[in-house]
């Protein structure tokens, strides 16, 4: 929709603009969320696309995604064959409520910075040990994705800071992975989105998103029993289960356990095979 209070668009921002950030400013990534709701408090848009960051960089260290990498670009990218965990990309793209038309404009960084519980790029990056690089006027810092998304619509970004990129280490990309998603309608907004990964040593990492207001991560030295999993998931405080029209918290808590068990079973079965 038209954002009629916007007076200026900075199409070629520089790093200096980070210092000039003021009330009424918003960083524009894909725009698919920003233009989807009234924003009467905004006066100026700073177009992150103007930085011209390369979207995808893959090297021996792993995968670095610019915040402005469009979801369609990530989905269309061909990963090295031994980066088995990249099989998650398609599932996470499909878990986005928006269709391929949104993939064409929405960005990986935008999805993470929006910090919706159901954000599938948050799930992907958190499950793959992602680390955010944040830019500010006077420098940069690194924050794990798990700590970056702190709650519903709440991130670790400070005023004037932006998400520059997300790095997924090669160690995580080489793990085997399994994904489960459920929603109140067949392709609706995720009520729970869980990702498990397993290393060669049989160690298992389970990341819980969508059912909870922020990602939760559970690391097991070996695939846990149902009881072991349940005990671990009990660490999620009841208040952390999200409550909105896309699922009641009691159901979210329950399906989190169910999907977690399915993931453990799939990964464990793969390990035996």
């Amino acid at each position: 929709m038209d954002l009629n209070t916007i007076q200026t668009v900075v199409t070629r921002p520089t790093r200096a603009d980070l210092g000039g950030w003021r009330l009424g400013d918003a960083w524009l990534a894909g725009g698919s969320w920003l233009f989807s709701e009234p924003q009467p408090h905004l006066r100026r848009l700073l177009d992150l696309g103007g930085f011209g960051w390369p979207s995808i960089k893959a090297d021996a260290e792993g995968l670095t995604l610019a915040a402005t990498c469009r979801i369609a670009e990530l989905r269309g990218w061909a990963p090295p064959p031994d980066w088995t965990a990249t099989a998650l990309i398609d599932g996470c793209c499909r878990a986005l409520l928006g269709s391929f038309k949104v993939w064409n404009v929405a960005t990986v960084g935008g999805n993470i910075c929006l910090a919706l519980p159901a954000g599938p790029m948050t799930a992907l990056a958190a499950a793959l040990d992602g680390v955010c690089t944040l830019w500010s006027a006077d420098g940069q810092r690194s924050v794990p994705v798990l700590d970056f998304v702190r709650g519903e619509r709440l991130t670790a970004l400070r005023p004037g800071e932006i998400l520059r990129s997300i790095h997924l280490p090669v160690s995580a990309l080489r793990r085997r992975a399994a994904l489960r998603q459920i929603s109140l309608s067949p392709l609706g907004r995720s009520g729970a989105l869980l990702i498990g990964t397993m290393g060669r040593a049989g160690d298992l990492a389970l990341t819980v998103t969508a059912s909870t207001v922020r990602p939760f991560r559970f690391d097991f030295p070996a695939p846990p029993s149902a009881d072991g999993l349940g005990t671990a998931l009990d660490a999620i405080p009841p208040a952390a289960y999200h409550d909105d029209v896309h699922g009641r918290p009691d159901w979210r808590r329950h399906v989190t356990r169910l999907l977690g068990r399915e993931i453990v079973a799939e990964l464990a079965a793969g390990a035996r095979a």
Partner: protein
Amino acid sequence: MSFTINGTAVERAPRPGQCLRTFLRDLGWFGVKKGCDAGDCGACTVAVDGQAVQSCIYPAFRAEGRAVTTIEGLAGEDGRLHPVQRAFLDAQGFQCGFCTAGMIMTAAHLDDAQRRDLPAALKGSLCRCTGYRAIADAVAERVHVEEGGVGCNAPAPAGPGLVTGAAAFTLDVRIDGLTHIRLARSPHAHARVRSIDRAAALAVPGVIAVLTHEDAPPTLYSSGRHEHEADDPFDTRLLDDVVRFVGQRVAAVVAETEGAAEEGVRRLVVDYEALPAVFDPEAAMLPGAPVLHPRPSGLGEPDVGVPPSPSNILATVKGRIGDVDAGFAEADTLFEARFDLQRVQHAHLETHAALGWLDADGRLVIRCSTQVPFLTRRALCRLFDLPADKVRVQCGRVGGGFGGKQEMLVEDIVALAVLRTGRPAVLEFSRQDQFIGATSRHPMRIDVKLGARADGELTAMQLRVVSNTGAYGNHGAGVLHHGCNESVSVYRCANKRIDGHAVYTNTLPAGAFRGYGLSQVTFAVESAMDELARRLGLAPAAMRRRNMVRPGDPMISVSADKHDVEYGSYGLDQCLDAVEAALAAPGGLPAPTGAQWVTGDGLALAMIDTIPPRGHFSNASIRLRRDGRFALAVGTAEFGNGSTTVLGQIAATALGTAVDRIVIEQSDTDAVSHDTGAYGSTGVVVAGRAVLRACEALATRIRKAAADQMGVSPASCRLERDGVRSGTALLSFADLEESGSPLAAEGFFDGTPRSVAFNVQGFRVAVNRHTGEIRILRSVHAADAGRVMNPMQCRGQIEGGVAQALGAALFEHLDIDAEGRVTTTTLRNYHIPAFADVPHTDVIFAETADTVGPLGAKSMSESPFNPVAAALANAVRDATGVRFTSLPLSPDRIYAALQPSAPKGVATAEPALSAGCA
């Protein structure tokens, strides 16, 4: 900045925060629609450098230097349709057509893999009308259209315009000097407006006027529109100094631009004195509850529809047939339960909108998205004290209605602005406005008690219905009465007691919604019948067969008085047999494997009177044009119901010619003298009857004129496609000479007598006891529509009705919080069925021909909605053992009800929400 749009270079700078959608529309590309303006519905889909995007969430400046293609640019330069456009015509993959441009732009940009996975590929493309089967068929390039009159699958005349983006919906016209209106809405559920300070708003550059209750006429009226003014209470002021629900319009700001109008609204300073509010209809009926509408003094017309004071009870139904207590004493089995039906929204993709201006003669012209142009004119005339010839109301193509546009929600404000400023003005609802400031289905609480003998015969039926009409009484009485009527009168039972109340509360006003009360009460009655059958060990179909009315039985709900509903035809038995047989036969999807999945079958029936009671009027006129084609003028509106197609078929059949010779002019108060409008499923059975009468009269006149001209007897003359034949001689229509009276005729129908139509829905479902998911394995719908005028279209109406009803049964709930605020204000938080959500439904038609309807037809547009939710709940009951008494049947609510800790038996599931939604 430079853009290439549909192959043409454009130099123009969009506003800084402008989205591509409005930028393109400003340039005249009206094929780009607004359904949600939020990236949820896809009606605005265009291609940028060959990639499909939703233009409402695409910053316009980003398209600089790029090639943008809209629906208008999809066809080849030689005008040849794109294959996808052709396919949507061949399969008639649309109804109202508002989503069509975006749907085609999306479908035209799918790759092969996406075409094989339409549920995912089309999840950003919402259609509220079709139920998606016709869209799937279009993508698969299936052909359904055929040439012909009544009984054939004639295509909609609007089709070519819809698939090319040329069809002009309400706002798809350019008007110079247009001003824009935005509404200030109340943050309070009940308050008196002490003062409104307009100074800051008027100081905003571009703001022209601020309209408040001080500018509004004192006249009371109802936003609900009916042929009989007394059907709705005159309880509403155009702008009032008392507000009765959160979201009620308080003031209108008129400005040169939308942005200025919005800023004006933000700068208005309104001083409210908060008043006590009541949200629950049961509480609103108690002594001491705040009264929303104390009897007005000196306002309105005391003889018409003034609500009784001092009470919030708008309308009451009290029916006493036989002796219900004796009937229950006679019963071997009783069943009693309380059902709560939630608030749902129409979600027609074209929001409410109106344009207004003064024409060269100083006449007020309102172009609006309405089902009732003539009744809107009547209301405007009354409000502004204008004679009928000083107001013209017309529609463009109307983008869906479902009852929501049997309401005047924007036209009055636009008229006030035009009359006050002398400038053309437009008011277009946002999608948020649709949720907070339009209408909804009436939430209802229904207590049902049924008694039956061991053989299944009903001994008594008792209902208590409390309908929440919200802050205003538009449609409140009619919906209550209708809801309690055919849902009960379809069963033969000597003893019936019905107590119903429509009650004011400080919530969003409810209004007309597909089914008009029947979907709610039918859910309760059909669920209770199912449960009673179980307790008696009878098959659900057998239980119904034992009790349903048959020709000759009186149709009685609250009164045994004589009425004008008759069995013009009867196909309920066929429908029930067909659904029962289909559920018993192999077919449908296999049940998922795993012990967590349980399966069950369920069905439900519904009856509907083919026309609303007490008169529904249509005029039609037909005239032979000099070019040999026929100009048919009708008043009824087309909003995707397909009546225009059928009216053309009726005319072609009556005139012995082909549909391409019929040119239809409609939905304009200048077209005919009067038409009640397109509600109550009357497009075919009322307007069609008027058309038939006009065409039959003209055919007689043409035969006479041709006989005179050819020197033969009229009896020897037969009308055919291109003219009049007598023996071997053919006189073409274009060569017919008017001698004396012009070759034109008129037809009229008053909507009486009326007949009954029937629908039976059956489902087989699988329910996952662990996650609460439902999978519909089989869906079958049998309909008695009389003689089916256009099977393809009628099937589409049924599929669309089933899909919309599945939305209400599975997903949809418009929530209102404890302060009276609507909290579901976007389509991503109010989930309407998408492609992935709608199963295939087998549609079966009963073979009947009605003696009342035109050429044997009966109505079939609202009614398919009505039995669906009960059939689904009955199937879920069969699968799980749990009787759901409220909706939607979403996985989280099913999961909760299936927990061992949940109370057993009936009524285990609590309503979807609490306050304000009884």
